[in-house]
């Protein structure tokens, strides 16, 4: 792993395999992500794209191959895993905010308990983040009192509060009503432009076109094709990519 320490490679996946019982979900994924890159992963449902990004912070375990995040290989060593998880922020499709805590408590929880940040410091950071995602006035409310779009923005702020080096997005807009998608995408676009390393599973092609450095097409547990957005949209090589794009861009 010493060859990764000095380079700008922040995520390295080599021949990653995973099975759910006998079902082969990931069939040898090779991917290297540079620091500051914005990567959009897309593909049909059941193609393994969500499973793949959940492997990057080990919410799922891979069974073969290597995943190296920020110079540390993911193994069963729980201390390494917890250290990596605090460097990798994740935003979920279903938001997964903590319903018994207020918005500000949701955001300050991990900095206080994992990083031991003093209360006033973590509170101030949380308010900055709420300003950044545009809902500082909701700080003292409970998640159930917010709209879906607001909840997802809180979830982004919660992940950013750990000041992560990488942000993972697992279909962040799929559970939202159409009129709320834009407010979440705006936050994500701003984040991408600020230089954050992002791996996002999403079918928001507008987002991909606007900020992605690279798009990766997943199908049946494999990376079928990857390239810059212009190349993927205007000149896809694989028939499977063409078919899938024609299906989601038809409307």
């Amino acid at each position, binding site marked *: 792993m010493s060859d990764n320490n000095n380079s700008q490679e922040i995520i390295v996946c080599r021949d990653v395999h995973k099975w759910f019982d006998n079902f082969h979900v990931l069939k040898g994924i090779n991917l290297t992500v540079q620091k500051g890159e914005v990567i959009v992963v897309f593909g049909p449902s059941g193609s393994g794209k969500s499973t793949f990004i959940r492997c990057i912070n080990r*919410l799922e375990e891979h069974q073969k191959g290597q995943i190296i995040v920020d110079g540390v290989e993911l193994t069963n060593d729980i201390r390494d895993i917890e250290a990596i*998880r605090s460097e990798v922020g994740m935003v979920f499709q*279903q938001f997964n905010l*903590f319903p*018994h805590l207020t918005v500000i408590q949701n955001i300050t*929880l991990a900095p206080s308990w*994992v990083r031991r940040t003093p209360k006033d410091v973590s509170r101030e950071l949380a308010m900055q983040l709420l300003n950044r995602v545009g809902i500082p006035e909701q700080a003292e409310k409970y998640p159930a009192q917010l709209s879906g779009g607001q909840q997802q923005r809180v979830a982004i702020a*919660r992940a950013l509060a750990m000041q992560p080096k990488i942000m993972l997005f697992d279909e962040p807009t799929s559970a939202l009503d159409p009129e709320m998608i834009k407010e979440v995408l705006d936050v994500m676009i701003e984040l991408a432009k600020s230089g954050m390393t992002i791996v996002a599973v999403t079918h928001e092609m507008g987002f991909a076109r606007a900020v992605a450095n690279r798009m990766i097409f997943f199908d049946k547990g494999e990376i079928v094709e990857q390239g810059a957005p212009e190349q993927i949209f205007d000149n896809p090589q694989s028939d499977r990519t063409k078919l899938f794009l024609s299906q989601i861009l038809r409307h």
Partner: protein
Amino acid sequence: MTAIEMKPPVLTVGPLAWVRKNLFSTWYNVALTLLAIGLLYALLKPAWLWATTEARWGVIEANLSLFMIGLYPREQVWRIWLTVFMLAGLIGFSWGVWKIAARGFALIALGAGAAFVLISLYFQWDVWTQWLVADFILLVFYFIGLRLRRGVLFATLGWLLYFPIVFLLVSGSKYIASLPPVPSNLWSGLLLTLLLTIVGNFGALPLGILLALGRRSKLPIIRYFSIGFIELIRGVPLVTILYMASVLLPYFLPIDVRPDNVARAMIGLIIFEAAYQAENVRGGLQAIDRGQYEAAQALGLSGAQTTILIILPQALRAVIPALFNSFISLFKDTSLVAIIALFDVVRISRSILAQTEWLGTHREVFLFAFIIYWAFNLAFTYGSRRMEEALGVGKR
């Protein structure tokens, strides 16, 4: 078209409308109402006649202190009052700190205190001053709780310390001159019933939580131990557990730590109740979405932090009604300790009936025991219902 505000039609509001709608809406409703009134009259008239003319309520008044504290030495009664005053202070303080969540219990305690003052004055008992003091302390600490900073910390500490202090006050110690030891065979009456209830429940809840977590543990030894413990205890009646605790426990322990009879009963009740609370808590744990674990893990929280900060607060709140329900059950189940020769409210009632001057007063005595249990449960149900409502607001 703009909506016009109209007055409700005549006879849809007010008590008369309620009576008409609920009691006399149809012919069979009228018949049922009349039948119910007739039955109530037939039942209550003799009961009322008995209570006002025939009943010898003197048995209650003469033995009131026996009901309350049993054989506890009368010159040490100030220690019991001290625990009452401390409880009043804690309830008032919690009211000030937790506001609406504790208000139900506080109002009940305040009302009960006031009622005892009036009852004592009416019967010219001298304890009315103590109850007045208790209410006064409750209110004073309410205002302290409202003003004090870090009140939540003090209130939590207060409750945690309260139970050991009560235990020390009631049992005394040979090392403290002003608190001579009172052997546990003298703890009896309502005092014993409440001590068993409180120790049983507050001992069982942490144990139950651990068992519930253990039952879901990934480690097979812990999981199978928890399942075995829970299913074994749930599979036998409380009576047998009390017998076991009373008869068998001493054989397993070294001679110098042999617990007395009351402590054995407490251990038995804790073990019994823990198995049920574990199942209640497990229900709450199962209601927690997988996404909550994943979100906590993704933030880098450790397993213990996830459980304590994220999972348990949600799981426990989801099952508050079930936890309180078990609490009430145990309160009533403590009456079974009579079989291992402890003098709780029910057993004391029977011993009062053995007094020659009060022969034949079964109805009065058991009705009074009935009222004691019922009044406590009514108060507790009211307080816990208010607490559930307060904790549910805007948080789910």
